[in-house]
């Protein structure tokens, strides 16, 4: 049988995600690099008590709708609907905006493991690459070190950082073929490339599915063997009519335009 990793719908793509699962979510925080429709499908499925692994915990769809994004959901859809038990993230809160995750965190309704961004990438890679752990200098002498083994190597202090293992990785890519080969666009590789293949099952949301061979051997970024399922975004999106945006989101957007976000 020809290999065919393409599935027909987002709901089908996430159908085996169970309560309590650990889920990596690719992207950087910008919605363009986020698997929005897979996140919507997970929210629709209503899974509970999940642990998420992602760079941010979402800003909410409003800030992205203001900027004209058609697919506007980010991690916030899992946060605000109470799916998350614990988040592993590098940038869980914003300095210019109180996101829903911060509200839940302050209310004691969600757990947080904060990991420096590069260490997060390295721990995800360690899982993907079959390593038992890596010694990382980042965080030495800070709160990140607490409760972890350290070791002085060649006169410098390192922290032993362990692999982050997950059941599923949700990835946003630009194009895929039936073998699961992927390419990305511009600055949207981010954690998508790093997480693809790092979980037991990797599910990819793409803008477009192309014929095998259309992605050349030198330009494929994620080889198909890291990918289990591919699902394409719809080409046409229904117009929602007037989009309602919260005042809080509008204000946050103004501040963003002034100085960039974080």
């Amino acid at each position: 049988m020809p290999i065919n990793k393409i599935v027909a719908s987002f709901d089908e793509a996430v159908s085996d995600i169970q309560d309590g699962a650990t889920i990596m979510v690719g992207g950087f925080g910008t919605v363009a690099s986020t698997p929005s429709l897979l996140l919507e499908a997970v929210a629709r499925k209503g899974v509970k008590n999940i642990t998420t692994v992602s760079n941010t915990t979402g800003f909410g769809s409003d800030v992205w709708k203001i900027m004209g994004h058609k697919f506007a959901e980010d991690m916030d859809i899992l946060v605000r609907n109470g799916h998350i038990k614990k988040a592993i993230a590098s940038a869980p809160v914003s300095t210019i905006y109180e996101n829903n995750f911060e509200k839940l965190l302050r209310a004691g309704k969600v757990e947080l493991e904060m990991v420096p961004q590069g260490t997060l990438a390295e721990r995800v890679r360690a899982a993907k690459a079959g390593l038992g752990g890596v010694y990382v200098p980042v965080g030495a002498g800070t709160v990140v070190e607490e409760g972890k083994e350290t070791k002085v190597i060649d006169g410098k202090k390192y922290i032993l950082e362990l692999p982050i293992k997950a059941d599923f990785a949700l990835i946003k890519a630009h194009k895929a073929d039936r073998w699961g080969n992927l390419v990305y666009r511009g600055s949207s590789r981010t954690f998508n490339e790093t997480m693809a293949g790092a979980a037991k099952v990797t599910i990819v949301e793409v803008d477009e599915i192309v014929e095998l061979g259309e992605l050349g051997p030198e330009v494929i970024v994620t080889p198909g063997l890291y990918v289990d399922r591919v699902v394409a975004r719809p080409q046409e999106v229904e117009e929602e009519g007037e989009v309602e945006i919260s005042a809080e989101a509008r204000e946050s957007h103004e501040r963003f335009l002034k100085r960039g976000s974080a």
Partner: protein
Amino acid sequence: MDEKFKLDRQTMALRVAKEFQDGDVVNLGIGIPVLAANYIPAGREVLFHSENGILGFGEITAPGEGDPDLVNAGGQTVNQQPGMCCFGHAESFTMIRGGHVNVSVMGGYQVSEKGDLANWLVPERKIGTIGGAMDLATGVKRLIVTMNHVTKNGEPRVVKQCSYPITALNCVKLLVTDIAVIEVTEKGMVLKEMAPGWTPEEVQRLTEPTLIVDPDCHEIELM
């Protein structure tokens, strides 16, 4: 205390940009640092690195005009330019942690005499965000911090020991504040430049550690 002249954000950014050498790979944090991109000294070619996986990109676009798949670490759309390249997170932080980025400029809450940096959490807020700050502070060859010299309440930010949670130890090499340029050396903090109208004594009064006044200490040069 009379209000003496202090550098504004743009001027601080201008002073920071003077530090960029030909061929430097530079990572700019959000806020004042990112403004420095507008002031590269004439004739120098500098490559900007953004931790979300682009190197050698161009200027920030006008709002609403850029490609949402081409953004800097602050989420602002930037222009493509010849020689630019894209990569994923593991590679991006291989660059940062591995010392392949020459200069990082970031904001700070406190900088200690030994160059310790605290910039990820204001203790009163209790919740902060580490992001890529620890990686950058630990990994880059030369860390420049830019911040106001004192807090809104007039308390020193240049301190003997950081009381705020640490981002990285012994990492700051140069500090550009709204009133001074200070180099962090093994012997201590060296006052190199001051805002117009300031004396070393006046800068010292707002600074916890004892400053070594450089014999050549002078008014901040912007050109």
